[in-house]
């Protein structure tokens, strides 16, 4: 049964389209991330909270409409907004006991403190907590509220690794409990680290991103293997060159720019377009991910995710979030982080000569 239903929702601001009409359903135990610009995100949240009236379409949570009854609606939805704050002069525990009474919640404060890992800070005033700890305390408020749908706005912006780990674990537990989670973010990497169901919302509309968990892809690969073999054969015929050409062409404003493979940091695929990242700049590539993977493999490139190829020479750290989710941190100036799928982890380990 779907918990959240968004039907033909659209938003115009004067003459510009913030986002065109789209529909989305999120059911129990589903975690969905929407990758979107800050503009669209704030508008969407305001529509959700009933702060600006919905002119077209509707938002239903458990069949309850925000337009008809705000109270019933907010009973079902819990929000985490970036600018939310708690009562600064009160301790974490006092804040929680207030929310417990306010929401009439049965969840014990100790349990919440354990999940957000603030047990040692229970009697510390909110104003004395660090930014990341405040964020965790806010997550705790949502847990106390215990709604059917959790909406998070940029949950992992500006927080430390520990808090990110707590958040990912929390989302996984919510998923197990049958809650629906909606994450709004403008950071693709963070969206991918949270869930496999990523959508992009922009002025063209809502598109599902082609992210599949590895089990599904392996199935598809067996069925689609024949096609791939054919495709590869065709490629081989085309790529027969007299001199081995080692540069990767990219297109910038109708010019073709050639790059040495070692210059490349990583390659990201988005909406069927592979983009090459070099020193923080993005260059659209003319090749598909598979072609690039084949071309770059000899130079120490590694397909670490369905949507990412990384230059292993540039990888500085492999961060383990949980047993099944990993991130590669590059050594470039921006310290870019790239998701690593769990099945690729084993492959990477053998490549690195680890057991």
């Amino acid at each position, binding site marked *: 049964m779907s918990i959240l239903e968004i039907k033909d929702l659209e938003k115009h601001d004067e003459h510009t389209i913030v986002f065109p009409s789209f529909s989305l359903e999120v059911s129990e135990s589903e975690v969905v991330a929407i990758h979107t610009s800050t503009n669209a995100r704030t508008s969407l949240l305001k529509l959700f*909270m009933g702060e600006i009236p919905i002119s077209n379409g509707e938002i239903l949570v458990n069949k309850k409409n925000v337009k008809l009854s705000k*109270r019933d609606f*907010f*009973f079902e*939805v819990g*929000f985490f*907004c970036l*600018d*939310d*704050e*708690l*009562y*600064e*002069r*009160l301790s974490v525990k*006092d804040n929680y006991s*207030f929310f417990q*009474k*306010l*929401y*009439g919640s049965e969840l014990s404060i100790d349990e919440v403190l354990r999940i957000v890992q603030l047990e040692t800070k229970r009697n510390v*005033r909110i104003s004395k907590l660090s930014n990341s700890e405040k964020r965790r305390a806010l997550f705790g*408020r949502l847990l106390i*509220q215990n709604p059917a749908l959790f909406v998070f706005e940029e949950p992992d912006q500006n927080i430390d690794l520990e808090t990110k780990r707590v958040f990912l674990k929390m989302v996984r537990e919510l998923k197990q409990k049958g809650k629906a989670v909606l994450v709004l973010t403008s950071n693709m990497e963070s969206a991918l680290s949270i869930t496999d169901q990523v959508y992009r919302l922009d002025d063209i509309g809502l598109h599902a991103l082609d992210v599949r968990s590895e089990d599904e892809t392996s199935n598809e690969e067996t069925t689609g293997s024949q096609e791939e073999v054919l495709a590869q054969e065709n490629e081989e015929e085309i790529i027969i060159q007299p001199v081995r050409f080692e540069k990767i062409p990219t297109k910038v404003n109708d010019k073709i720019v050639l790059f040495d493979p070692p210059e490349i940091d990583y390659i990201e695929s988005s909406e069927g377009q592979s983009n090459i990242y070099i020193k923080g700049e993005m260059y659209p590539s003319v090749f598909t991910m598979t072609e690039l993977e084949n071309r770059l493999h000899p130079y120490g490139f590694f397909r670490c995710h369905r949507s990412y190829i990384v230059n292993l020479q540039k990888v500085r750290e492999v961060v383990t979030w949980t047993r099944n989710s990993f991130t590669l941190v590059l050594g470039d100036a921006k310290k870019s982080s790239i998701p690593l799928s769990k099945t690729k982890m084993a492959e990477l380990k053998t490549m690195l000569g680890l057991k």
Partner: protein
Amino acid sequence: MIFSIKRSFAIFQKDYKDVSKNLYVTVSVLMPLALAALWGMDGIDNINIHYMLFNMTLCMVAAYVQCCLIAEEKEKNTLRGLMLSPASTMDILVGKSLLSFIATFIILVACAFLQDYKPENLLVISLAMALSTIFYIGLGTVLGLVTKSVMEASVIILPFIGFFSFGSFLTVLAESFPILKVTEYLPNLQLIEIANKVHSGASLSDVWFNLAVIFASIVVIFAIAIVVFRKRMMD
């Protein structure tokens, strides 16, 4: 709109803990007490002077505390959290007013004690005080809703403290400017009138008109509060 005592009480409890740690507010709340102690030492026995202090207390405690409580929730974005919770607007306002009301009551009693003021008819005076407190809480709510931060709230309250505490001077001005006759119907002047009547031995039946005027101003201020609240929620 469903009203829940449990939720209001939770808000009251939370605000109590919060305010007790808020030096900003506690210092201004204790100021009338200091003044009362000072005047009490001089042994002033003038109803107008007593009531200047009572009116100031009402303004500084009832209106200011209420104003700060609401302004701070707005400043820290916690009011939105409350609005998105099962607590209704009524729960929130009652919870907050309860704290201001109790604080005002304690300070008023303490002030009367320090100034050695003993009203002839305690029932009438308490009723008048209670009604006035509700009016000032309404005033604080309106001011809290129009301001954006505690800082703004503390500044905006100043002219009101001046206006309502030293309101007795308006009657002097009213003699030269007839248009100012209207000010006689202000709740602070009505309170002084009741006190003077009671001092000269009046009973409840003699002051019902003045009480009705205070009650009318309560209705007006809460109507304004509701209008402002609706408007703010639209933004």
